[in-house]
C-alpha cells in the first residue's frame, strides 16, 4: 500500500495549438506528504493541475491514482477519484451560507434538510480535527478571505477528497492566516491526506513541503526533497539561470518633500468610506512602502493620487495642492504634475489588452506633441519606432510593438507599463503590486528599476500585498488596515511578525511611532 504513490503522472503532454503547455511530464506524489509544485507563470503548472482535475484532456500520457490507472474526463470523475481542488479564485456562492455551499452539488437526495444536517455534523468533526472552524450558518460574503478559503477546503473534504490541490492559496491571506492554513495542511497530512501546493513563493515551499517539483516551460525539470534543497537552487531551477533573490541597495538619501498627504478621506461608489483620514509624506530619493492585506484602502489611495477617483483632504505635490474633487483633474493632469502611475490592475487600468504594444506605450501620454504628425494625424510610424526602442530597453519579450498587449506574459505586460511610466522620469511614481503575476526573472528586473528611480532622486509610493517585496524595497513602511495607517516602521528595525500584526489591525507596542 505504501509503495503506491497517491498520484503518479506518466508522460503527460498537452498542446494548445502550436504551444506545448506540458511536454512529457512525469510526477510522483507520495501518499501522506505535502508536495510543492513551483514554476514561473506560464510554466505549465495550472495546465497540469487542470488535466488532473479533468478540465483539460491530455494529448498523451496516463494518470494513476493510488497505483490504479484512471481516466479523468471531467471534474466529477476527479472528485470520484478522491481529488479536491481549491482554486485561487474561490468558487463559492456569495449569498449562500457556509453549509449550503459545502453541500451544493453533493446533496444526497431531492430534499435538502437531511443533507444539511449530515453536513453540519461532519463540519463540526472536521473543524475539531483540523482547526477548520467556520460558522456553518454564516453567509459567505460576510466571511474574511481566509475563512472563505477554509470553506473551499471543507467542500473538498466533504466530498471525501484524499488528495487536496491548492492553487496559490496564500496570495490573498495575511501572514497569520497563512500560518493557520499551513497548520491545517499539516493536520491533513498527519491524517494521511496528500496535499499538492502550487505556488511561486519559495519561502512557503521551504516552510511546509516535503518534496518539491519544479516546472519550467512546460517541462518538469526536477523533483527534489525539500530538506535537501535551498531557495537559491529552486530559483535557479525555475528560471534556468542564477537569480538574485535579495535586492541590492544602498541606504536612501532623502531630499526635499515631494508628496504630502493630509487627512485624506475616500468613499467608494456606494458611499462607504474606504480611506479614513490618513496623512503621510514622501521625500525625494526614498521609497515608502504601504503594506496591508488587499482591500484595506490601498487601492483607493492609489486611485485618488493617480487622478482616477475623487477624495477629500489635502494632497500637495512639490508644495502645490492638487485637485481632489475629480472635476478638474484626471490621469492626464496628474501626469502633467510629474506623477506617474503603475496601477495595481494593469489588465484593466494600465493597459488596453486589445491594443497593440505600441498603442499602449503612449497610453495616457497620447496628447504629447511629440507623438503627432500634425494637428489631426498621429505619427504612428514614429511611435512604433519609439515603442520598439523602449521595449528593448525594458527587456520586453518579444520586443515586437505590433503584438497585442494580451499576447504578452504578465511580466512582459508589466514591463510595457513600466517602460511607459518610468522613461518619463516622473517626480513621484505611484506603483501598485509591481510584481503580481510576474515571474521571478522579471521581478528582479523590476525591483532594480524601482531602486534606480529612487537613486535618481525620485519619490516612490509602493503598494504591495507581498510583505517580502515591501521589506526589501522600502526605506519606510506604513501599514494600512481598514482605511487607516496603523503605524510606520523602519524596515531595518521591524520583522514580518510585527508587520503581520499591524496588517491584522492589532496595534502592537509603540504603534504610534
Amino acid at each position, binding site marked *: 500500500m505504501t509503495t503506491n504513490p497517491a498520484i503518479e503522472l506518466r508522460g503527460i503532454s498537452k498542446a*494548445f*495549438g502550436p504551444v506545448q503547455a506540458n511536454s512529457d511530464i512525469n510526477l510522483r506524489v507520495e501518499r501522506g506528504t505535502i508536495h510543492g509544485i513551483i514554476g514561473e507563470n506560464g510554466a505549465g503548472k495550472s495546465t497540469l493541475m487542470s488535466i488532473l482535475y479533468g478540465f483539460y484532456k491530455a494529448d498523451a500520457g496516463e494518470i494513476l491514482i493510488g497505483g490504479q490507472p484512471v481516466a479523468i474526463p471531467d471534474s466529477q470523475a476527479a472528485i470520484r477519484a478522491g481529488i479536491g481542488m481549491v482554486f485561487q479564485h474561490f468558487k463559492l456562492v456569495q449569498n449562500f451560507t457556509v453549509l449550503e455551499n459545502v453541500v451544493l452539488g453533493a446533496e444526497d437526495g431531492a430534499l435538502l434538510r437531511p443533507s444539511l444536517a449530515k453536513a453540519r455534523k461532519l463540519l463540526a468533526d472536521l473543524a475539531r480535527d483540523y482547526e477548520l472552524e467556520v460558522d456553518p450558518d454564516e453567509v459567505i460574503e460576510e466571511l474574511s478571505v481566509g475563512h472563505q478559503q477554509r470553506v473551499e477546503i471543507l467542500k473538498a473534504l466533504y466530498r471525501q477528497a484524499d488528495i487536496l490541490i491548492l492553487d496559490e492559496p496564500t496570495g490573498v491571506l495575511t501572514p497569520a492566516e497563512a500560518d493557520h492554513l499551513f497548520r491545517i495542511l499539516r493536520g491533513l497530512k498527519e491524517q494521511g491526506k496528500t496535499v499538492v501546493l502550487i505556488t511561486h513563493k519559495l519561502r512557503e515551499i521551504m516552510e511546509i513541503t516535503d518534496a518539491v517539483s519544479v516546472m519550467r516551460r512546460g517541462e518538469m525539470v526536477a523533483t527534489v526533497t525539500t530538506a535537501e534543497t535551498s531557495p537559491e537552487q529552486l530559483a535557479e531551477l525555475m528560471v534556468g539561470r542564477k537569480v538574485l533573490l535579495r535586492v541590492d541597495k544602498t541606504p536612501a538619501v532623502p531630499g526635499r518633500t515631494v508628496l504630502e498627504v493630509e487627512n485624506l478621506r475616500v468613499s467608494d461608489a456606494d458611499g462607504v468610506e474606504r480611506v479614513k483620514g490618513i496623512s503621510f509624506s514622501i521625500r525625494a530619493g526614498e521609497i515608502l512602502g504601504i503594506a496591508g492585506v488587499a482591500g484595506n484602502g490601498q487601492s483607493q489611495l492609489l486611485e485618488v493620487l493617480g487622478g482616477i477617483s475623487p477624495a477629500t483632504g489635502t494632497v500637495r505635490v512639490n508644495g502645490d495642492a492638487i485637485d481632489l474633487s475629480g472635476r478638474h483633474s484626471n490621469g492626464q493632469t496628474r501626469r502633467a504634475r510629474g506623477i506617474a502611475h503603475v496601477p495595481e490592475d494593469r489588465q484593466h*487600468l*494600465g493597459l*488596453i489588452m486589445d*491594443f497593440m504594444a505600441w498603442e499602449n506605450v503612449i497610453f495616457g501620454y*497620447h496628447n504629447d506633441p511629440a507623438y503627432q504628425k500634425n494637428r489631426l*494625424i*498621429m505619427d504612428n510610424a514614429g511611435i512604433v519606432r519609439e515603442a520598439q526602442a523602449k521595449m528593448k530597453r525594458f527587456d520586453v519579450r518579444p520586443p515586437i510593438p505590433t503584438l497585442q498587449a494580451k499576447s504578452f506574459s504578465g511580466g512582459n505586460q508589466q514591463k510595457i507599463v513600466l517602460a511607459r511610466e518610468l522613461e518619463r522620469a516622473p517626480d513621484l511614481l505611484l506603483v501598485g503590486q509591481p510584481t503580481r503575476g510576474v515571474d521571478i526573472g522579471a521581478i528582479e528586473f523590476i525591483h532594480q528599476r524601482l531602486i534606480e528611480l529612487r537613486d535618481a532622486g525620485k519619490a516612490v509610493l509602493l503598494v504591495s500585498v507581498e510583505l517580502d517585496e515591501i521589506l526589501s524595497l522600502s526605506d519606510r513602511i506604513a501599514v494600512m488596515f481598514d482605511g487607516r495607517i496603523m503605524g510606520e516602521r523602519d524596515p531595518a528595525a521591524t520583522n514580518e511578525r510585527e508587520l503581520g500584526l499591524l496588517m491584522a489591525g492589532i496595534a502592537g507596542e509603540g504603534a504610534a511611532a
Partner: protein
Amino acid sequence: MTKLPNWADIVLVPLVSLLFAAIISALVLLAIGQDPVAAMNVMVTGALGSPYGWGYTLYYTTSFIFTGLAVTVSFNARLFNIGGEGQAQMGGLGVALVLLSLPVWPHWTVALVAAALGAAAFGAAWAAIPAYLQARRGSHIVITTIMFNYIAAAVIVYMLVDVLRPPRQMEPASARFPEGAALPTLHDIPGLSLIFTREVPANVTLFIALVAAFLVWVLLWRTRLGYQIRAFGQSEPAARYAGIDPFRTIMITMLISGGLAGLMAVNNVMGEAEKLVQNSSEGAGFIGIAVALMGRNHPFGVLVAAFLFGFLYQGGAELGLWTTIPIEMRIVVQGLVILFTGALDVMVRMLLARLFFRKPPPEVAVAARERA
C-alpha cells in the same frame, strides 16, 4: 496563440456564416414548396444581372454604408447606437428644410454641400440627446436611442402633415425640392452613362459614401480622437486612468455617429425621392447594425457588408416581383444573415478553430466548462 489566422478570421468566418445562412434559407424555401436554386437565380440576375439591377443594388449599398459607418464609429466606443433609423429620418428632415429654403439652387454641387451639412447636423443633433443622457445621467444609450427612433418618426409625421405639406396636397409629404437640387445619377455621369444606359436610383452620393468610409478609417486608426474613442470603448476605467474624458468622448463619438446616419438622407431623400416622405429611411438604420457587425466594425468591412445587404435588398425585391415567393422572404434571409454573421459568429469561429487545431482553444474550452 490559438487564434485563427488573420485571413481566416476576416474572410473565412463571414463566408462560412453566409453559407450557413444560405443553407437554412434554402431549407425554408423548400418548406414553403419553392425551388431554392430558381430563387437564387432570380435574386442574382435581378440584383447583379443587369446595369439596371446594379443601379438599385448600389443605391441600397450607399445607404447601408452610411448607417453601417454610423454604427461602426459608435461601436468602437462600445456605445450601441441603435438609433441610426431615427437619426437618418431626422437627417432627411434636415435635407428637406435646407433644400426648400431656396426657391432655386444655382448648381447641384452647392445644393449637395448645403443638404449634406443639414443632414449631418440634424442626425447629430438627434444623437446628441441620448448621448448626453448616457454621459451625464447614465441612461442606457440602447434604450434611449431606440425610443428616439419612435420620437423621430412622430416628429416627421407632424412636420409632413402640419408644416411641410403644400396646400391642397393629400399625401403627407413635403413639396418637391426646387430646381437645381437634383443629384446626378450614375446614368448622368459621363463615362458611367455608357454602362448605366437607363435612369437608376444610384447617384453621386455613392462616391461620398466611399470617401466617408475612408475618412472613418483615418479617424479611428490615424487620429488622436480615434485612439481615444477606441481606448474608451475597450475599457472605461483604463480611459479614466489615461485621462480620456468619458463625457467628451461619448458626446463626440455620438455626434459623429449621428451625423453619418443623417448623411444617408442625401442618398435617398435628395438623390432619389427628391422630396421628404414618411419613413424615408425604410429600415436602413437597423440594417446598419447588421452591416457593422458583419463588417467587424471596420470601415472597409462595412463596404463589403453594405454591398452584400444591398444585393439582398434588391434581390429580395426581385423575388417579390417575379416569383410567387412572398417579399417577406427577403426579411427571413436578412434575418438569417444577421443571425449567423452577428449572433452565431462565435459558433462559426469555434467550428473553424476545431478544424484548424482539431482542439478548441483553451479560452473557449474554459468558457464552455464554466457554462456547463
